């Protein structure tokens, strides 16, 4: 535990010193503030009688809408947006953790301590998760509180959607660690993680792509990649589906099912296992 806490302190101090942490939370706060002041709702007897967005009246066609429905619709749409924002910010703020540790003159200071390389790598991974997780909790928690404050509708599913986003961040961070161990480059780690994120989205249509190619091995490759890479599209669908309690189009995961979670989790575990093995074998 001493090693874990020492690493967490190291990671947090570094994030603060490099302005990563401050910028990370400032951006999130800015976003929260804009949201808090841009949305003004006029709720009468549990129904939305009028709404203003950035000072402009929203056309309600003279009818009132159930505030519960408005909140549900808003939160499900917004959770999708936060899925992208949180994931991108988190990877940007944490992908340097391994490359920075592996710098010549620094890695010796860490590895000359009586801790196994596995423990060292994992403690930095957990430190990264705490950094990312804190921001996700802050961003989603703030938005949720603003919605409760403005509408008096308490809908905890939006809050819990943060767990799915955190799960995706943990998966991509595992991949960023793997790339970091191999290349010792922060830029490559960030780019690769974003690439995997987008590939995951593209491969949601793997059946159509596989049907369109002429060779069997090409179809096999597309299907194989689909099963290997994290299911970022399905996770996106899962976030919205979870918040809205509605079934989504099939390509976005349809309903909440455990398969995309299991496949994505397996990818994360595989990345961490490979990163640990390579880090253990690496000579400095």
């Amino acid at each position, binding site marked *: 535990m001493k*090693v874990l806490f020492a690493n967490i302190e190291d990671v947090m101090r570094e994030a603060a*010193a490099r302005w990563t942490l401050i910028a990370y939370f400032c951006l999130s706060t800015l976003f929260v503030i804009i949201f808090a002041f841009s949305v003004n709702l006029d709720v009468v007897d549990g129904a939305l009688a009028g709404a203003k967005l950035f000072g402009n009246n929203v056309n309600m066609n003279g009818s009132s809408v159930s505030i519960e429905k408005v909140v549900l619709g808003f939160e499900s749409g917004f959770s999708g947006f936060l899925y992208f924002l949180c994931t991108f910010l988190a990877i940007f703020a944490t992908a340097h953790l391994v490359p920075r540790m592996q710098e010549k003159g*620094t890695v010796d*200071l860490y590895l000359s301590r*009586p801790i196994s390389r596995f423990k060292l790598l994992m403690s930095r991974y957990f430190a990264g998760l705490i950094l990312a997780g804190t921001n996700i909790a802050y961003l989603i928690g703030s938005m949720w509180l603003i919605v409760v404050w403005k509408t008096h509708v308490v809908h905890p599913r939006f809050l819990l959607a943060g767990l799915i986003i955190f799960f995706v961040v943990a998966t991509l961070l595992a991949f960023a660690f793997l790339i970091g161990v191999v290349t010792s480059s922060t830029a490559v780690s960030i780019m690769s993680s974003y690439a995997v994120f987008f590939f995951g989205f593209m491969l949601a249509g793997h059946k159509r792509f596989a049907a369109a190619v002429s060779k069997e091995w090409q179809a096999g490759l597309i299907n194989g990649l689909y099963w290997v890479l994290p299911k970022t599209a399905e996770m996106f669908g899962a976030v919205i589906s979870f918040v809205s309690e509605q079934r989504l189009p099939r390509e976005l995961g349809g309903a909440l099912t455990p398969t995309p979670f299991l496949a994505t989790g397996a990818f994360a575990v595989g990345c961490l296992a490979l990163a640990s093995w390579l880090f253990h074998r690496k000579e*400095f």
Partner: protein
Amino acid sequence: MNVIEVRGLRKTYKSTLGKRVTALEGIDFDVAPGELFGLLGPNGAGKTTTVKILLGLTRATEGTATIGGLPVSDPESRRRVGYLPEGHKIPGYLTAKQALSIFGRMSGMTSADLTARSKELLDVVGLGAWGDVRVKKFSKGMTQRLGLACALVHRPTVLLLDEPTDGVDPVGRREIRDLLQHQARTDGTAVLLNSHLLSEIELTCDRVAVLRRGKVAVAGRIEELTRTTAQYRMVASPVDENLLAAFRETGAAVERVNGHLVLSVHDLQHLNTLVDRTRSAGVMLSELTPVRSTLEDVFVDLVRTEAAQ
């Protein structure tokens, strides 16, 4: 029992094109508790590779290395090892106290123990007033002192130091030398020093091993390696050519060097004959001392031999 034991250590690196480069070709050495041991050698001789193997930073191709009886592949072997790498980069965003705290806890120390230890160590390395200043504001010499404090923070029984006085001023060098000798003599710490500063090694270490092309070319106690030669340094006046001719008649080789004479003699009796001749010529003898070779002479001889081969 030796704290560090190295037996038949070999290391071959593979280049990206598959070519093999041998860094170590089966070296052996031991370091006992309380001993100051120097590792010398020209660039590429294998010094850094040896230290890296001892720390588990790289793996030996063959042979064994143990610290405190544990194989170096076991992280526990580093429990009581302090290491100061050459060109180390203590994160600049940490203050001196934070650096000691983080690296101390990584070595298993408790926060309570660290508070007192940090203060004590920062005073010892002359950074007592700099504990709350970020490392990025430190000069090279100060960073080096802090690196030494980080290596000592968990009270190690083995110290592996790579160029510990690099960038440190002469007074600081002396302080570091005194500190290392105190660690060895008082606390029984085994110190392995890897340095290019031969005078530092000569002044600090008890024993050295000189590596050449991945092998131990020479090893032994400093006084054995820098043994007395058959040469003597004579300061006398006035010395004229007649006296030098009289010395040469006896078979001695004589050389004038910076106002004194360097005499090469066969033995002590021969030396006394020269002294008799000096006195009988009415020359006033003010100094006669044996010439010892320095560690630098030993080192340069080895490097020249290598170049000749």
